[in-house]
């Protein structure tokens, strides 16, 4: 039994498994980007054979990145990472803490002539001078007497032995943060009409509602366009209140979310619904009235001519622009008809369409005629509403990873050795070095050190 556990432990701590797992996750991710996901998957599955659809659904291929098996793969990966790091960390810690071992004469064997120097000063004086010089340059400096003379040893970057573990730790913290976000957070949205307010958010993919714990009101929504027609600005002026107390007030824009009691609001979409129509009424060629018909109401014409009631309002009816359908009661006759804002253009480009149905005929209520001057619209703003308590953790994990990457790749462990020996009234000085990465930089450093010693 113990053996089996050990074998399993060994297996989980192997880099081979890590490489295999990462490769499998990579291939799965590729598949996930090639197959349509979520809503698009339904479209994709239409007209497929039954077995294909059931296999597709069984493997949860339409929501691959959140499927049970993909999550399990990520779980195995994390386990592998934990076991592997746990197993190897003590060795790395030892390397990090290990004091310099004297007696590494072999290191000096390869020192080229340029790394040797003879000084006139006495041995004790030189030891003192070089120790001071090294102390200025390196983190840890030690002086030891050895058989061949005195050894001054300096090093920096020992922390790089732990770099990989800091990276791996960072990855685990990111995963933990992502899980915290999934379990303790929510993702939702709200649509708020200008001037109105909400107290709950709809959760995405129809999972119900989430009470906010306060009231969010949209005071005003503004959209601006460039001359090219591209959007320039989406802005919602928001007020957040609790009871009578105003908690916060401000402008919400894309890329500038607002946060309140841990809930973040993002500008994400907008829309409008028609609120009222401004109509001009003619009798014969004469303008007899300008009226405003609210979307759910009616307007009375002056002089007992009748009344106009709104039936439908469309911001863009069949690509013909703004239009309203009204029920006009004129001189006792009731007529349902559409009124277009761009009647002249429609007449010019598509005259046939006006004869397709009686309600489209602009002359239906003669001698009365109508013109739509303007459709008053009311904007609503679409906000994304999230709470993600895991996000700070993800940020911390990312910083850890960056720190670990720096340590591993740009701040390797470097040791510099200076051997001093008394020689014909003077001192002979020999340099050597050792690094766990990038010998080129080490050589450059040693040449610099030599220059400093000589000067």
């Amino acid at each position, binding site marked *: 039994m113990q053996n089996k556990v050990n074998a399993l432990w060994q297996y989980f701590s192997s880099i081979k498994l890590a490489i295999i797992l990462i490769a499998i996750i990579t291939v799965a991710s590729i598949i996930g980007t*090639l197959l349509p996901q979520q809503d698009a998957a339904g479209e994709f599955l239409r007209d497929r054979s039954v077995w294909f659809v059931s296999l597709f659904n069984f493997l949860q291929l339409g929501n691959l990145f959140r499927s049970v098996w993909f999550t399990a793969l990520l779980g195995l990966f994390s386990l592998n990472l934990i076991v592997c790091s746990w197993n190897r960390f003590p060795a790395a810690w030892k390397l990090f803490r290990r004091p310099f071992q004297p007696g590494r004469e072999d290191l000096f064997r390869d020192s080229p002539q340029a790394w040797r120097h003879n000084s006139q000063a006495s041995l004790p004086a030189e030891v003192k001078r070089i120790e001071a010089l090294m102390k200025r340059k390196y983190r840890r400096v030690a002086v030891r007497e050895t058989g061949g003379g005195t050894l001054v040893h300096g090093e920096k970057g020992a922390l790089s032995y732990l770099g990989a573990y800091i990276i791996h730790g960072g990855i685990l913290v990111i995963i933990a943060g992502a899980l915290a976000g999934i379990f303790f957070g929510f993702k939702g949205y709200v649509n708020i009409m200008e001037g109105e307010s909400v107290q709950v958010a709809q959760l995405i993919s129809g999972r119900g509602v989430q009470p906010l714990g306060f009231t969010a009101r949209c005071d005003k929504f503004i959209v601006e366009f460039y001359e090219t027609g591209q959007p320039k600005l989406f802005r919602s002026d928001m007020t957040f209140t609790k009871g009578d107390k105003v908690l916060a007030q401000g402008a919400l824009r894309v890329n500038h979310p607002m946060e309140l009691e841990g809930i973040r609001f993002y500008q994400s979409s907008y829309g409008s619904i028609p609120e009222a129509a401004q109509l001009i009424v003619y009798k014969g060629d004469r303008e007899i009235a300008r009226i405003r018909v609210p979307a759910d109401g009616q307007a009375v014409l002056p002089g007992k001519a009748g009344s106009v009631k709104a039936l439908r309002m469309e911001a863009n009816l069949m690509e013909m622009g703004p239009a309203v359908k009204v029920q006009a009661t004129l001189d006792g006759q009731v007529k349902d008809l559409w009124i277009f804002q761009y009647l002249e253009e429609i007449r010019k480009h598509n005259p046939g369409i006006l004869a397709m149905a009686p309600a489209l005929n602009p002359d239906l209520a003669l001698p009365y005629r109508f013109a739509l001057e303007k459709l008053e619209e009311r904007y609503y703003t679409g906000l994304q509403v999230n709470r993600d308590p895991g996000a700070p953790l993800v940020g911390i994990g990312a910083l850890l990873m960056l720190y670990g990457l720096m340590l591993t790749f740009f701040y390797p462990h470097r040791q510099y050795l200076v051997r001093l020996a008394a020689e014909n009234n003077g001192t002979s000085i020999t340099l050597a070095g050792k690094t766990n990465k990038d010998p080129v930089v080490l050589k450059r450093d040693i040449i610099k050190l030599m220059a400093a010693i000589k000067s």
Partner: protein
Amino acid sequence: MDNTMMFSVVTFIYLFSFFFYLLRMISGTEFWGRIGSWSIMTGFVLHTFAFSYRWVESYDLGIGRVPLTNFYESLVFFAWTIVLIYLILEWRTKSRTMGTFITPFAFVAMAFATLSPNIDSRIQPLIPALQSDWLTIHVVTCFIGYAAFTLSCAMGIMYLLRSRAEKKSLAGRGFYSFLPALEVSDELNYQGAVLGFVFLTLGIMTGSIWAYSAWGSYWSWDPKETWSLITWFIYAILLHARFVRGWRGKKLAWLALVGYASVLFTYLGVNYLPGLHSYL
């Protein structure tokens, strides 16, 4: 002369630089190498000038933004970073052979930007989602990473050529004699991958920060994000294979090529996948 004209000129200068570097290896005379160096430096200076000019021009148009926000500009910046890294390398290693293998990447990126009819080179104002400093940082870090991976890939190609030549005992002759020793290209391949990996990591992080402030979600498995993660995984495999399992040489060179294919797909291929949005 507006900035796009200058970029077109730069494209041809890079093409000529490639020919000069190639001529050096074929003819075996360093003269052509020197011409190549001068040519690519001229191209780079003009490239830098045109980039700055485009920046200034955007202010004259009343738009005022860093030229790093559409596909055209990203290609131009990609090529610029590749050439910058190459110039540093040529200066540090005093070797021009890499020029033959790296300049084609810069040329192709520029040619794609300036010659393709589907790529809009106009300076356009930014839609709200793109109005973010994080976007700028994101683009810069990503493309430094991509350029470093380009270096890694070019080194992998040089390694494979040289190792084939050695097998056929051609290494001492003509063109092949210019290829650096195997250890050198192996080491530079690895260093390119390391630099690329660090910057890709930064790129993914800054992209996530941008997404978090624009859409409220730092990760949503959108195809572009997923492919950047795939690329990141491939290079993570490369780093582990080398550091922990001691892979060197051919295997590593091939891994660098696979990684680079993934980089190109992340950058260019993703737009052809089913998905919600492509940023560039």
